[in-house]
């Protein structure tokens, strides 16, 4: 049996996944980062993008995270995402609604003039990334396992 590492993905409003993995890819601000079990301690900032988790059977699960922090310990990887989306949930989403959501976010940026704008703007950027990601997995773009 291959060596595994405990992976937890939690977003601000729910626990997204928890399980064992042999390989994890996370999108950090410095670029994609592949983590294998027994990696040294690491703290990295995440940007909006795709997380790929390979389990002991070689099955790859895909997640979208909109940013946050990843903590790596030799025995555990914790992904603290601001918001996260599972692949199967993404497939179930109604595309039109997603597009409308993005439009609504973008339109609000123009109106607002206050400090909260930063969060809105960031929200819109993340929503755009999210939409792109959903489109890509729906488009049947195949991801290799690593």
């Amino acid at each position, binding site marked *: 049996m291959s060596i595994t590492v405990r992976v*937890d993905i*939690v*977003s*601000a*409003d*729910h*626990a997204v996944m928890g399980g064992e993995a042999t390989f994890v890819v996370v999108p*950090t*601000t*410095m670029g994609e*980062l592949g983590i294998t079990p027994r990696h*040294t*301690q*690491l*703290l*990295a*900032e995440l940007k909006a993008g795709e997380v790929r988790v390979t389990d002991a059977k070689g099955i790859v699960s895909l997640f979208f995270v909109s940013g*946050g*922090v990843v*903590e790596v*310990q030799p025995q555990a990887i*914790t992904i*603290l995402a*601001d*918001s996260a989306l599972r692949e199967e949930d993404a497939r179930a989403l109604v595309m039109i609604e997603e597009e409308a959501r993005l439009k609504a976010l973008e339109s609000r940026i123009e109106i607002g003039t206050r*400090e*909260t704008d930063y*969060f809105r703007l960031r*929200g819109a950027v993340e929503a755009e990334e999210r939409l792109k990601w959903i489109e890509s997995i729906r488009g049947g773009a195949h991801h290799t396992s690593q």
Partner: protein
Amino acid sequence: MAGTKEIRTQIKSVQNTRKITKAMEMVAASKMRKAQENMQATRPYLEKIRVVISNLSKAHPEYTHPFMVERPVKRVGLILVTTDRGLCGGLNVNLFRHVLRNMQSWSESNIEIDVCVIGSKGAAFVKRGAFNPVAEISGLGDRPRFVKVQGAVKTLLDSFEAGRIDEVWVARNEFVNSMSQKPNLVRVLPIAPETVSAQQHHWDYIYEPESKDVLDLLLKRFVAASVHQATVENVACEMSARRIAMKNATDNAGDLISALKLKYNKARQAAITQEIAEIVSGAAAVG
């Protein structure tokens, strides 16, 4: 018959009130369930981030973030989490009382207080007292969004970073169970580092991109997550407090109605008896 009509209208009005409180009770009960689920769902994030931070305090970072440094306290920031609506029993009042006691001891030791209120009940409270509100948000709804809380907390975080305030506290109701809520006040900043035992070997994280940036992000998330959890928990408290308050109101209305009904029947019978007496005495006088 004079009394009976008034009593009848009174009964009608109490019955209407009872219908409303009953409906509110049921609405609160169903919202309570959702709020509790929501509360459970937000918990893992806070727990995980807490684990990361406790790992962090065990590490020996070359850089100490200002959020983890204790300073002499001259000014504190207080985040007051309250409900937007009333009719939830003593929930807000109990919290205010609890907070006031602490505020008093702060002002006795010449510590100034900046208040950031969440919820319109708290805003009204701050307006009444002579406090210094720095931020105010309300209308978060039944599912407070993380991003909105982040925006509200930002002002206090900024002034903490700039050294204008030396501590940040959160006052909110703690959800014990659906029957009881406990007001409490906890310090979120500075984050108290855990005492490190000497025999632990030295290690530190690799930081990507920079230790300062990552720690900044992480600790800000932690504070926002704590406040978010507090608001979510407060919604659960609000709903259960409202359910209890409305249940009591419904029960009281029921008692009131039966008392009024008794009074009404007595008045009605007294009127009939009097009428009969009048007829009988009238007939006797004629005969």
